[in-house]
């Protein structure tokens, strides 16, 4: 019985004449979707599996399907005769272009057997000469098929052997996804044995006497990023320790370019002795032959990268772009060993490397070494751990999954660097890729939403606003979501009333809500750092700014927000102390409305007011004259007089939110939520009572307090009190209030406090807040005379608005969580951009 082993992710090419049993074999050993047959493709393009004129088109389709599957990393079997060299060559090239291995399975049956089988099939009406020709091609191929470029060619001779054969899947060597750590990933050692031992001990490892192995009491696994050898004082010592750890299963090691070259040298190949190779060769020469042999075998056997922890972690010596994770090809190995070189060399004669990490968008964390850096820096979920210990820098480890950096200094400069080692790093100017935001996007969110779709046309509208008007994306960490009103009130004279909001939350199983005064101004997000240095460290903004205040669409509030930012930083300094953070982001309302919206108020609201208050008195006069003549215009006259009163109320409604400001004089800011600070997306973690409490302690004349009452929904009395509070608030001209659940049912609090109030309400279905707007305020929204048409206006549809509010809320929390987790800029921006894009969806803007 023959056992055929094919790689788990590979292309398998079946080779055999028509009638050799390829399709039967494929059906028996592979899933139907894994097999792509030329007959099937011929059928697809010609409605006839045997239409030979369709063969070129059929193979176009076959190649496309195979290519797509391989790009997606799926095992694929090609069921076609493949008896000719050029047919196989195309498939091999296709596999190589997707960096997967390719095996051939040859089915060699006697010509008569094949002919007999074909005769039994009425749809195969080609004559025996076709089989003969194919057989001849196969014979010719067999002689040199092993040189075609297949990883392995499996040959099955005769029907019996084919029948008896079994197929097994081989895991790729790089695939160690079953290992979940925790890991200690260690940067380039370069023969610095003493520093390695110090680092391991610092990490809690116990080194065996003689330094031939090490174990961690908590069962951690060490992962070496390669370049154990060369340049340093004791490459054999490092090898001995690591080899022992790998053999004992307490460590993994990927190959570095230095191991690769040293192994070639030891194998007697001609290599240029440079970059510290001589040191290793000399040191190894002093070792016993037995050790040299073992070390060579170890280095020869190192593979170029590992996929770990379910694919969430990739370790490769020089890093690896996402398309290469888990793949096998010459160029994958070369990328992993040498990085993405451009082929050019710099002024020191060292290869110029393409900054692949800046464009990295993969979900897996990639940890690597190879290029010495003065400081480790996360770039798009990748990190380089080579901190140049051999050049007198440090030896660095990354603890996974904690993402903690641990390093020990070099005991001395062991080797002089050709290139100035501490050259200032190139600061990333915060450039994002159009692919991060263009077209239809699906954003995964952790708080209550799964995946949120952004449509292409909405992305397009947002792109324009974002790129023409928004502040630097590094400051733009959040955009506020929209908020839905309650179900429409049936109460006489009202469109919105607190009763419906309370009822909605009660029905969702929420027992306590907080009612917050809704300030009527312009929504503002303030991102503040303690100092420009803190801003540079946390946000990478190095132009000396220490914060930003921007609108709902990301525009800076004023032409120059420096003064406002500085005042707010001073006002919030105690809060930063309390939070133990060098920065924070606040959700606020900036007052007065006219400070930002004066243009809009003048062109829209005041204009309508002026037109109404000028036109209506004249209309009344004309109607009065007509009535005086005995014409029947009484009803119209009454109504016009009423409208005159409405016009005056409308004017008062907007004028209340306008007052002159000069510089910051007259400007007030009402913060109502701490969005995030270092390590904590507080908006997602803390109850509203916490937010109101910490914010109430801000003492600065610039800060306006947010009045609020909390409501026990089980008590009618409590509801009535809040309703009365709302009535008073809106009668004074207030916009209204926002009702929010006091604590999220089921959401984990910041201090391990479970919110569990009993009811299991799925987050993501309950509105995060409901705004209840006042009767007079709504004139600004629905027009001066809206109270005349309440019946018609009650036919409003909240569904889209409510869905939008939930999606935007989830995206807002997502951007803050990504920020707090230290995720790359593009990840934060993706969620922020999506909020702006969703805001351009056509939803009734009055809701």
């Amino acid at each position, binding site marked *: 019985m023959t056992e055929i082993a094919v790689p788990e992710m590979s292309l398998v090419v079946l080779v055999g004449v028509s009638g050799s049993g390829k399709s039967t074999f494929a059906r028996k050993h592979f899933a139907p979707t894994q097999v792509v047959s030329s007959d099937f493709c011929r059928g697809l393009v010609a409605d006839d599996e045997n239409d030979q004129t369709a063969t070129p088109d059929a193979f176009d389709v076959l190649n496309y399907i195979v290519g797509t599957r391989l790009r997606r990393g799926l095992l694929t079997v090609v069921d076609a005769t493949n008896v000719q060299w050029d047919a196989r060559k195309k498939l091999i090239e296709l596999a190589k272009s997707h960096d997967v291995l390719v095996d051939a399975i040859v089915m060699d049956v006697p010509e008569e057997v094949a002919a007999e089988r074909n005769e039994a099939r009425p749809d195969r009406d080609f004559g025996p000469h076709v089989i003969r020709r194919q057989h001849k091609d196969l014979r010719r191929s067999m002689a040199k098929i092993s040189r075609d470029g297949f990883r392995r060619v499996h040959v099955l001779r005769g029907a019996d052997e084919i029948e008896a054969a079994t197929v097994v899947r081989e895991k790729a060597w790089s695939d160690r996804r079953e290992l979940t750590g925790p890991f200690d990933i260690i940067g380039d050692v370069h023969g610095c044995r003493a520093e390695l031992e110090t680092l391991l001990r610092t990490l809690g490892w116990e080194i065996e006497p003689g330094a031939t192995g090490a174990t961690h009491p908590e069962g951690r696994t060490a992962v070496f990023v390669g370049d154990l050898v060369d340049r340093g004082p004791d490459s054999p010592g490092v090898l001995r320790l690591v080899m022992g750890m790998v053999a004992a299963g307490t460590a993994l090691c990927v190959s570095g370019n230095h191991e690769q070259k040293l192994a070639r040298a030891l194998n007697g190949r001609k290599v240029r002795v440079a970059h510290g190779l001589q040191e290793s060769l000399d040191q190894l020469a002093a070792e016993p032959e037995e050790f040299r042999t073992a070390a060579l075998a170890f280095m020869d056997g190192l593979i170029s990268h590992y996929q770990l922890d379910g694919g969430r972690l990739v370790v490769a010596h020089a890093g690896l772009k996402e398309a290469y994770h888990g793949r096998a090809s010459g160029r994958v190995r070369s990328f992993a060993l040498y990085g993405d070189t451009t082929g050019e060399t710099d002024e020191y004669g060292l290869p110029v490397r393409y900054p692949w990490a800046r464009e990295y968008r993969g979900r897996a964390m990639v940890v690597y070494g190879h290029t010495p850096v003065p400081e480790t820096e996360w770039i798009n979920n990748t990190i380089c751990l080579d901190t140049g210990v051999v050049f007198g820098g440090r030896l660095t480890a990354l603890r996974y999954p904690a993402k903690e950096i641990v390093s020990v200094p070099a005991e001395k400069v062991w080797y002089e660097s050709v290139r100035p080692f501490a050259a200032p790093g190139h600061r990333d100017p915060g450039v994002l890729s159009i692919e*991060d935001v263009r077209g239809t996007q699906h954003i995964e969110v952790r708080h209550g939403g799964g995946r949120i779709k952004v449509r292409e046309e909405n992305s397009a509208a947002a792109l324009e606003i974002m790129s023409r008007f928004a502040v630097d994306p590094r400051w733009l960490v959040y955009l506020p979501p929209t908020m839905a009103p309650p179900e429409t009130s049936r109460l006489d004279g009202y469109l919105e009333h607190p009763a419906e909001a309370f009822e909605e939350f009660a029905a969702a199983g929420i027992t306590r809500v907080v009612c917050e005064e809704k300030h009527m101004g312009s929504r503002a997000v303030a991102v503040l750092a303690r100092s420009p240095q803190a801003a540079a460290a946390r946000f990478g903004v190095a132009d000396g700014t220490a914060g930003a205040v921007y609108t709902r669409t990301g525009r800076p509030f004023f032409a120059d927000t420096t003064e406002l930012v500085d005042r707010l930083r001073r006002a919030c300094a105690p809060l930063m102390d309390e939070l133990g953070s060098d920065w924070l982001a606040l959700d606020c309302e900036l007052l007065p409305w006219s400070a930002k919206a004066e243009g*809009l108020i003048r062109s829209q609201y005041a*204009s309508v007011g002026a037109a109404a208050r000028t036109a209506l008195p004249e209309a009344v006069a004309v*109607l009065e004259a*007509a009535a005086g003549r005995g014409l029947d215009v009484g009803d119209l006259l009454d109504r016009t007089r009423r409208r005159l009163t409405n016009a005056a109320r409308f004017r008062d409604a907007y004028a209340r939110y306008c007052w002159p400001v000069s510089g910051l004089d007259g400007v007030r800011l009402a913060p109502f939520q701490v969005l995030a600070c270092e390590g904590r997306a507080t908006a997602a973690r803390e109850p509203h009572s916490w937010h109101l409490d910490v914010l109430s302690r801000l003492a600065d004349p610039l800060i306006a307090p947010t009045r609020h009452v909390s409501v026990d929904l089980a008590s009618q009395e409590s509801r009535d009190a809040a309703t009365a509070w709302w009535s008073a608030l809106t009668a004074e001209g207030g916009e209204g209030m926002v009702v929010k659940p006091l604590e999220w049912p089921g959401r984990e609090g910041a201090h391990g406090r479970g919110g569990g109030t009993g009811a299991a309400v799925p987050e993501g279905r309950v509105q995060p807040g409901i705004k209840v707007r006042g009767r007079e305020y709504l004139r600004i929204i629905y*027009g001066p005379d809206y109270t005349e048409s309440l019946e018609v206006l009650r036919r409003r549809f909240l569904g889209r608005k409510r869905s939008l509010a939930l999606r935007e809320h989830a995206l807002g929390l997502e951007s803050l969580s990504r920020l707090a987790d230290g995720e790359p800029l593009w990840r934060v921006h993706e969620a922020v951009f999506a909020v702006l894009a969703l805001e351009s969806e056509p939803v*009734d803007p009055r809701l």
Partner: protein
Amino acid sequence: MLTISTTVRPATDLGFLLHKHPDRVQEFGQSYGTARVFYPEAGEERCTAALMLDVDPVRLVRSRGRSTPDYALGQYVNDRPYAASSLLAVALADVFRTARTGRCDSRPELAAGPIPLEITLPVLPCRGGPEMAHRFFGPLGWTVEAQAVPLDEGFPEWGDSRYVRLSLRGEVRLADALNHLYVLLPVLDDAKHYWIASDEVDKLIRAGESWLAAHPDRSLITRRYLGRRWALARTAFARLAELGDDVEEDLEPPVEEDPAADPGPPADAPPSEEPAGELPAVPAGEPPAAPAGEAPGEREAAPKRPLNVLRREAVLEALAESGAHSVIDLGCGSGQLVGALLDRPEFTKVAGVDVSAQALAIAARRLRLDRMPDRRRERLQLFQGALTYTDDRFAGYDAAVLMEVVEHVDPPRLNALERVVFGAARPGHVIVTTPNAEYNVRYDFLEGMRHPDHRFEWTRAEFQAWAAEVCREYGYHVAFRPVGDDDPELGPPTQMALFGRGSAANAGGGDD
């Protein structure tokens, strides 16, 4: 509302002329409400007819359906129920249909000749203020009294509203008077015309065409109408504007809009009398339909050849010298340069990129993309992109042009633009033009910068310092060239930088 009075004797003959009885209140249903005609006075000496529109804003909105592009906040809070807008013009045409033709069987001689008339519009939206009302109605034989309505007495600093109280007095044939109103109300109106169906707008303009021919301001009138048409497809953008408490107009992309070059109304419409091409010089007091980077003064200072034309020619010349065959115009606006590039066969690959979908739509229309021959079409790519996001589609061109673009980018975002263009796309040549701030003193009426969307304007020294820094960072060399009159002290109105990749030693072209 509008009132029409006459002092012809007997004044009540007005009823015959209007075909509406003075002692009745007559109602005419409209999609958005009711139009009423009645007479507040009807004496022998003087008779006044009032046309009063009862616009229900809720019905107005609902009658248009939610798929219409004007699904914006302004629908309920709008001046249509109070102001004499295009809705009133349409109602007037409907209610006084016969009177407008001049036919009156019972008083033919009265209908045929001028009679003393007084027309009052208490609230007329009048873009350009009272003066514009004088300009439009004066030449038609009216004595015009136009008074600006203040915006809000509580906020005197806000000034006047866009409305005027208008009275017209004169000896005018009634049918002509009605036609004047019918045509001019929508033209004076500041609002986008989407409040009424677009075919109504076309009807209005077509009806006015013959009559407009004799008006001294006919092209201004036509342009005002055409200039507002683009507003139709702007919903998503308008929503975002409102959301940020911004006025949509303030966010308009700085697109060079030239209505005369617009293919115009669909094929069934008669060809316009006005040939595509030169509009008269922009009159004083009228804000120009400012092309990108074009100051009010720029035209007056160089009456012979507009600066934007000189600029385009300078860029084309520089491109030709560079030997580039493929060119990407980053910030192509309405596509003038792209069109010029396509006209020259040596440019085998041309791309136009703009961040504004509206600009691209205008460009596609101007370039007649849908009717472009295949051979020409194949050379062209037109797509949305932003200069602050790296974009693989920007790569692979011999030359990139940033014509009057950098000054629209906030200074803190310039380093992102540099990275995107010089670092990532890395074309062999980059041509950058931008205003020379020093030259601004030459523009008499200019206050501040040349375009409201400009985030900065550089002096020559500032521009050159920026360019030098870009060269150092990304490995380019640069030469500078003036565009327009090169003032010995102030320099040219437009400055141009020609960047080439690599060191200056192996560079050709460029004089400095």
